[in-house]
């Protein structure tokens, strides 16, 4: 017993606790229904699981396609060092999103219906297809990491040969459904608060996902460098910080332009809860990191870079929560706040994601490519190889 306790480090204890709570909530959810496990209601049918697990989950995984495009299409080889963790996050992210969806759907056993029952006028239908297809693409993009580990040469060569088409398809699918998650809310012009409702929602979702995806890559590299005591790829990450500044700038300009076009300024300056959250989202999650990252010495300093990236991620999460929850509450007059079981399931899923990432990083060549691979890279045309 004592030995067992000794092995339980702090984080493992946290993990076990989250798993315990999450599993209990899972039990309640699947034996007593959504009503017993959640605070959802007829007035407020979408809550934390859609707002956080789905909208944020997909968005934070956007680093995968962004970096793939940078490296394989724009041929900026410098970023190769961070492409693998980005693809891994994306892949895990999507698996977890699908997992979370099983909780939220009223009839999860029918999730396959979208494959055979079509309604092309539905944004949700499009999202379903994109997520299905893109998860497949991600599995393929991720597979070389596994094949390398297993030493399977043939499949490795096949996947490498189709890297570029794969990346192109991946970028297209991501563009479509990152923006479609915003399109989901186009249909509720009268419900969503004017601070967030805009016909540009799809574009905002797309651009902010690219930003959040890049920030996540920085965030993970930093965390894993500490966890595994490895060298952090500062030059590339600092560069990525610069890319982030540009993305945040584009985002800000578009948001301001949109506010002006819709004459929604009054909502920004009226003291309401919504306005406060809007300020938090834009000020702390967009403007502050933009200013910070624009300064070279912040960008080049690991802590400065890490904190700025963290702000971007938090701002992104706040934005998605605002669109999906706080921005809808006034209209619904429902006063939704997630139940502890909804929170427990979400925390469990996040914990599972971190655990899976840590395990993969430890046992697969995610951060430290093998020597054998470097040899391969030199004999093959470099733009088709996975990492060096």
């Amino acid at each position, binding site marked *: 017993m004592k030995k067992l306790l000794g092995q339980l480090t702090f984080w493992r204890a946290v993990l076990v606790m989250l798993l315990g709570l999450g599993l209990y909530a899972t039990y309640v959810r699947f034996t007593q229904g959504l009503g017993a496990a959640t605070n959802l209601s007829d007035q407020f049918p979408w809550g934390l699981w859609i707002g956080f697990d789905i909208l944020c989950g997909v968005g934070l995984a956007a680093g995968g396609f962004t970096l793939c495009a940078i490296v394989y299409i724009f041929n900026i080889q410098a970023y190769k060092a961070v492409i693998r963790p980005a693809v891994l996050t994306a892949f895990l992210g999507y698996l977890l999103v699908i997992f979370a969806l099983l909780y939220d759907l009223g009839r999860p056993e029918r999730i396959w219906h979208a494959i055979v029952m079509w309604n092309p006028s539905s944004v949700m239908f499009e999202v379903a297809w994109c997520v299905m297809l893109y998860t497949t693409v991600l599995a393929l993009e991720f597979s070389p990491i596994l094949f390398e580990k297993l030493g399977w040469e043939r499949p490795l060569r096949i996947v490498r040969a189709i890297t570029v088409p794969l990346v*192109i398809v991946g970028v297209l699918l991501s563009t479509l459904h990152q923006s479609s998650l915003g399109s989901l809310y*186009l249909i509720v012009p009268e419900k969503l608060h004017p601070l967030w409702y805009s016909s540009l929602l799809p574009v905002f979702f797309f651009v902010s996902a690219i930003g959040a995806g890049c920030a996540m890559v920085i965030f993970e590299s930093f965390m894993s460098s500490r966890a595994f005591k490895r060298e952090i790829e500062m030059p590339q990450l600092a560069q990525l910080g610069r890319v982030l500044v540009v993305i945040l700038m584009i985002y800000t300009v578009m948001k301001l332009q949109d506010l002006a076009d819709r004459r929604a300024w009054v909502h920004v300056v009226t003291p309401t809860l919504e306005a406060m959250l809007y300020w938090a989202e834009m000020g702390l999650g967009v403007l502050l990191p933009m200013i910070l990252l624009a300064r070279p010495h912040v960008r080049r300093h690991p802590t400065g870079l890490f904190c700025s990236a963290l702000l971007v991620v938090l701002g992104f999460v706040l934005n998605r929560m605002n669109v999906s929850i706080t921005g809808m509450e006034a209209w619904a007059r429902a006063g939704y706040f997630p139940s502890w079981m909804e929170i427990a399931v979400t925390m469990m899923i996040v914990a599972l994601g971190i655990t899976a990432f840590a395990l993969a990083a430890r046992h697969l060549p995610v951060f430290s490519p093998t020597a054998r691979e470097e040899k391969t890279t030199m004999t093959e045309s470099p733009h088709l190889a996975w990492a060096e």
Partner: protein
Amino acid sequence: MARKAMLIDITRCIGCGLCRDACKEQNGLPAGEETKLNANAYTVVQDYGHDVYVRRLCMHCEVPTCVSVCPVGAFTKTADGPVLYEESKCIGCRYCMQACPYQVPTYTWDQTEPRVRKCIFCHSRLAQGLPTACAEACPTGATIFGDREELIAEAQRRLREEPEKYVDHIYGLTEAGGSSVFFLSAIPFEQLGFPGNLPKHPLPLLTWNALSKIPDIVAVGGTALYGLWWIINRRDEVGRLHAKLKEMEDRKE
């Protein structure tokens, strides 16, 4: 079949609740006096004081939001007007509930195999040539059933003949592209809980604008990405070839 509709004249409603009871009986729902739509009440009568009672029910929109958003096509709009729900298709995403401008579809939250519930315009009665159960039960004629065009004419007639009695608006005629249930009232509709900020065009247009761009994005985006890749990587390839050639020449010498 001619398109059917219902006209509900709020000024004639006495709040007896017979429509609600008839609906419950017709649809085999447990009896009760709910005032909010839920899985056991497809229509309710809400008391606004001063003898003002307002029915709530599905509007059976002309271009229904619920039909457009359902990913698996569980909702359909029939030719004669009703908007129907097919339980066996539904995956329970609840997008229909999220998107309906009138907050109509409800859910059986307490079941492990939940389903969406809402008024189905007594579709089976219509097929037999009967009016909806609620219209048949209404003792004052506050709810009447009939051909859509005729009911619109009737509503316009009432507004014309007694302009002092009504606010000059047939609710449901233009809201979100129009519906199959119309309301007349003496009190502005916004004060009776009707959404007042709905656009005149059907809401599905909003998402359709975005969705219809997908083929373009795929075609243009795919070509552009491939082209970019080709141009950018071509330079490298050429560079490598040159290097190789030079190497070979060097060796020959």
